[in-house]
Structure formats: structure tokens, C-alpha cells
């Protein structure tokens, strides 16, 4: 099973890339997905996460083909 992870805004700049693909077999949380892709980077404080464009908490379980995203607090409007 695989998921796509996307990064936005300052987080994307800091990581130096806009997406990752992560393969997994056992059930994986959103937080686990971050550490699969960013072993050496602590999950930023205040980070927001979505799965398939809906906000989720970091303990949600991801499914095959999900699109996970991490991004800083939003500042539109």
C-alpha cells in the first residue's frame, strides 16, 4: 500500500520538497507517515494535517492511496 504526502508553504520550503511517496504494510497513523518520510525531522509544533483534503488529527489511520498533507497554520483572507 502507498500514500502520497504533500507539504505546503513554509513547511515545503523548509523540507526542500513538495511531496513524498510512502509504502507501508501494517496500519499507519498520520503521525507515523510523517516519520516514515522525515525520520530526522521532528513533527513541527502547530502543524495541521489532512487526509484526502479533510482535516484529521495525527492519530488517524491512513488507507491505501490516501493523499496526506502537512502544512503550517493557514493565513488567508
Amino acid at each position, binding site marked *: 500500500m502507498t500514500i502520497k504526502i*504533500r507539504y*505546503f508553504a513554509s513547511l515545503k520550503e523548509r523540507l526542500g520538497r513538495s511531496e513524498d511517496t510512502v509504502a507501508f504494510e501494517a496500519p499507519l497513523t498520520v503521525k507515523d507517515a510523517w516519520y516514515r518520510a522525515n525520520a530526522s525531522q521532528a513533527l513541527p509544533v502547530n502543524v495541521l494535517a*489532512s487526509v484526502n483534503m479533510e482535516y484529521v488529527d495525527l492519530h488517524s489511520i491512513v488507507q491505501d492511496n490516501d493523499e496526506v498533507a502537512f502544512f503550517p497554520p*493557514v*493565513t*488567508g*483572507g
Partner: protein
Amino acid sequence: MTIKICPTAFDPWEEVQAYQGNLPGGSFGATTVFIGTMRDFNDGDDVTRMHLEHYPGMTEKQLEKILDKAKQQWQIIDALVIHRVGAILPNDPIVLIAVWSTHRGDAFDASRYVIEALKTTAPFWKKEVLTTAQERWVTKNTDGYNAG
């Protein structure tokens, strides 16, 4: 209910005028419009331009959820939300929220709700370019109720 993500400058008054022209005349008694415009200063610094990033797909989805919730809570006849993305200059409109209703209480409360919800949940991010050419990400939105 219409949501537009707009990569180029727009004239808010012409957008609202055109949109309202398609609503049945005589049906609405109250219209509220909120427009957020780019200023040429922020946090004590002069800002020359801004880049507005968004998450295509999720942004529209979240804005639709916000309008649906507004429609559940207040008696709204119609609503229009336009938000700029991309390169933005001072004095450019960034966001437009227009709400039509029978009575003014609904239009006011709904438009206030929509802008506050947009500012906390719609995935947009602003990066400012200062006159010093320094770039910085805006890290949080001001509180709309006690704006500093």
C-alpha cells in the same frame, strides 16, 4: 453559492454587481460585502508584494463546507466567495465575501462567520516581500474580534 479561486486581480464591485444581477430582483432585503485588501505595511514593515499559496482542491472543499455550515445556521439566499492566489500587490483585493438574505441579521452574522472560518480553516498561506527584498511567511492571522 459560488466559490472562485482567482489567480489574477479582480474588481470586487464589478464581481458583486454582476453576481447580484443574476439574483431574482425584490427577493433579498440585505446584502453584506466584506473585502480584505492588501495593505502596504504589516507588523511595522513596508511590504511591496505578497505571494499567496493554496492547496488546490482542499481549499475549495473547505470553503464549500464553510458556506454549507453558514447556510445551516442562517437564512441565506445566496453567497459569493472570491479569493486571490499567486502574486498580489498592495491595494489588490485578496478576498471578497458577499451574502444576500431577507433580513440584515442573517447577512451580517453569516458573513462574519464565513471570514472567521476562512481565516482559520481554508488552506491559504501568505508570504510577504518587504521593501528590503526580505521574504517572510505570515505565521498567524489576527483575531477578527479584537484585531490588534
